[in-house]
């Protein structure tokens, strides 16, 4: 599973990354984490706001720092 965090690296992006990793580890998932920070690469996902989270290239969450519990629902 590839978890992609889209964002230029602000505090919200970092928090989302931490929460996503906590969720994936808590579920015992084998995952690869990718941080997409280049704005042109972020634009290719079609998101309107950052931070955003994609799973295997599919956008699941936009413009919000979801909790680990909320992210578990997206990863499950």
């Amino acid at each position: 599973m590839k978890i992609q965090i889209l964002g230029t690296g602000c505090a919200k992006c970092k928090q989302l990354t931490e929460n996503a990793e906590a969720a994936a580890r808590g579920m015992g998932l084998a995952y690869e984490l990718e941080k997409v920070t280049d704005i042109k690469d972020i634009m290719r996902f079609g998101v309107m706001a950052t931070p955003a989270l994609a799973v295997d290239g599919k956008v699941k969450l936009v413009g919000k720092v979801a909790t680990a519990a909320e992210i578990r629902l997206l990863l499950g």
Partner: protein
Amino acid sequence: MKITPKCGCNGGPDLMFCCSGAADTAEIADLAVRQLHKAKEAKMFCLAGIAGDVELIVVNTKTANRMLVVDGCDSDCARKTMEKGGFNDFIHFRVTDLGMEKGKTPVSGERIAQVASRLRELLKEAQPCVEA
């Protein structure tokens, strides 16, 4: 979809959804919304994507700072579509509420400008959406 994303630290975009009716008042609504979109005052977004539960459209709509939903008449198709899609925190406006009668209001620059002006007022008065 080529969109320059906004940093969520400062809130999401202001979004507008418009009905897709064939009537004159629907056309006025559409053109007024497009006027604001072209002037980058708010972003016109895709009502059909909400109706079709298109994932990328729905997740992006959830980021909206403020949302304006515009109908051409009191059938309120746009409002009902948004509510059916689970969105309730928006400002709703009907072109016919300005006294323009459906089927009897030829599309004109003046009428489009009148509606666009009212939409600007509503956006100014609006409170940001409650965070989902």
